[in-house]
């Protein structure tokens, strides 16, 4: 092929390929849907625990008696009976109330760990659990950096209990039950990109009020739920040592090496066995005795 021919050919190929590429990109853009999430502004929370009640009522879980149970006296965790709890922390800036539930990670450890896709990252963003698939191995609980999935240990047919961001309500076009119930606009539901803009706007316009960090922007590769705070996050019960690497990345190297081993090792062993066999043949043909 001479140079002239080469240019003609490449130009033709390029002309054929480029519009096609654009077309594909357009399609991808149309199909792509943004993950939803919730922004929690802890400076606005008054600790009324309406979200706890609304959540449990919506999903048939234990409804706490918020008038009399004095639950804020101690730090609680979500449990196999409640998807979400509100805790009170005494900080350098006074009492701060923090809601806790599944963070709905962008690349969730529990989803990557699950061998039957029972833990599932829906295309809308919520991480859901499917009881028809789950084996109950509880490795999602091992993997989750926030210790969110909870098992019903005292049941013959245990469920894994965790917030699913009211996935069924989202399907009906409603907002999560806790967001609906919040009287102070602490919780704001929307697409993460919009929520990030709002969160940044609040931090920039009130630089004295907030710490300059949005928890969930980068943590464990980004989460669906975002938190704003007036005090450093370690003071209000967040782990700040989790890093920004998405958790599935930790097993990626291992998984990549699997096909290499799966095909490389048998080939090597077959060859090796063939070699060891030949040696014996040679020895025998040359009349050497074994041993």
């Amino acid at each position, binding site marked *: 092929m001479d140079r002239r021919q080469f240019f003609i050919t490449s130009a033709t190929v390029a002309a054929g390929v480029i519009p096609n590429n654009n077309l594909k990109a357009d399609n991808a853009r149309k199909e792509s849907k943004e993950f939803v999430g919730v922004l929690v502004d802890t400076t606005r929370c008054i600790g009324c625990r309406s979200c706890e009640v609304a959540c449990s009522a919506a999903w048939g879980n234990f409804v706490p008696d918020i008038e009399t149970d004095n639950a804020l006296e101690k730090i609680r*965790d979500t*449990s*196999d009976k409640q998807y979400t709890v509100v805790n009170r922390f005494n900080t350098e800036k006074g009492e701060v109330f923090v809601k806790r539930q599944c963070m709905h990670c962008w690349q969730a*450890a529990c989803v*990557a*760990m*699950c*061998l*039957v*896709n*029972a833990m599932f990252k829906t295309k809308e963003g919520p991480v859901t659990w499917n*009881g*028809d*698939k*789950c*084996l*109950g*191995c*509880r*490795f999602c*609980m*091992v*993997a989750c*950096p926030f*210790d969110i999935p*909870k*098992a*019903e*240990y*005292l*049941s*013959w*047919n*245990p469920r*894994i209990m965790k917030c699913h961001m009211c996935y069924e309500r989202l399907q009906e076009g409603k907002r999560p039950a806790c967001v609906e119930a919040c009287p102070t606009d602490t919780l704001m539901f929307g697409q993460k990109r919009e929520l990030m803009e709002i969160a940044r706007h609040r931090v920039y316009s009130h630089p004295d009020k907030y710490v300059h960090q949005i928890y969930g922007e980068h943590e464990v590769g980004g989460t669906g739920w975002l938190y704003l705070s007036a005090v450093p996050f370690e003071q209000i019960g967040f*782990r700040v*040592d*989790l*890093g920004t690497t998405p*958790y*599935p990345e*930790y*097993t990626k*190297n*291992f*998984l990549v090496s*699997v096909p290499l*081993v*799966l095909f490389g*090792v*048998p080939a090597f*062993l*077959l060859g*090796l*066995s063939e070699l*060891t*066999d030949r040696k*014996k043949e040679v020895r025998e043909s040359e009349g050497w005795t074994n041993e």
Partner: protein
Amino acid sequence: MNNAAVVTGEFNRVVRFAWQELKPRGKWLTPFNVISIPIILIGLVILYFRFVYGIGFVTNLNQYYPLGIWIGFDVVTGVALAGGAYVITFVVYVMRMDKYHSIVRVTVLNGLLAYVFYAGALTLDLGRPWHIVNPIIGNSFGYNSVLFLVSWHFLLYMLTMALEFSPVVAEWAQLEKARKFLAGLTLGAVIFGITLSILHQSGLGALFLMAKPKIHPLWYSEFIPIMFFVSSVYAGLSMIIFEGTISHKVFKDLLGGQDHHRYEEIVLGLGKGAAITMFVYYFFQALIFVHEQRWQLITDAWGYWYLFEIIGLVLVPCFMFAYAVRNRNLGIIKVASVLALLGIILNRLNVTVIAYRWYDIDKYYPSWQEIVVTLMVVSIEIWVFRWIVTRMPVLSKE
């Protein structure tokens, strides 16, 4: 027609033969039976409560310790100790070192039973064990999951080992044609089995890669899978030595005309293998120690615990093996193998249970029910092993 009659006749013969063989032999009030029968009975009662009232009813598991000794010891440790099967089949069928041929059958049987019972103990720990087929058949495959890979490899490796052991069963049932056919598949099965073993021995370690913030940094590194694989080699070798010692006492009369000198040579060879792999393992641990700058971590109780494991139960038995092989001292080899096994048990329990959430005040410790069920699993395995060994040509070839 005639053929069919022959096949039915043969089938009837095998069934009658198997029925005969099922009956117990010899005295049954042996010390082992006296201890193990109550354990098994109590274990079955505990399992009844476990399946009716839930796992939490009989175990100390909680929301922060989802895995107890049923996983940490039965499955993770049990599988490591069963590593001998793939090591020995590699040595005999791939490297063709005939010296070890006489221990292949018993080692593969041990491996097979270990997987059936210890990996089988997994079903006791599953919340919804009736969904266990989901990763195998159906449409719910978690391709990106290490656990998915491990579960498939458990299944395939059990089948592979059954295939490796099947000639013995055929020989026992006097099915000569089947034996020849099955024996022809051995090399393929061995190579497949070694590959699967490499992957799931390391895969068991890879399960804990995502528990990074929960495992003490002395036990967590990105190389857990490789460490699990390397240590399974010497775990398997030590287990063969350990089991061989017991078998030689208990099943003395079954061994028949086996030459004691040859057995000694085998144990020395295994000890040598264990010494070398343990040193490689230790060296790797030392590299990780330096690379991750762990000096500041070894000044507290966890650090001493780590040094106890790595020096006391890896380096010391490693040198004991080397010394014993040099001086042809079988006694020291046996002690070293016990130390090495303790080191493996400790390492696996450290990763899965002990150094898991080391920062907690309320640590998990196993309930007595968990321990009884574990002992039950081990007891039943020994029962089945004994049944097979006293009937099939496992320890000595006829």
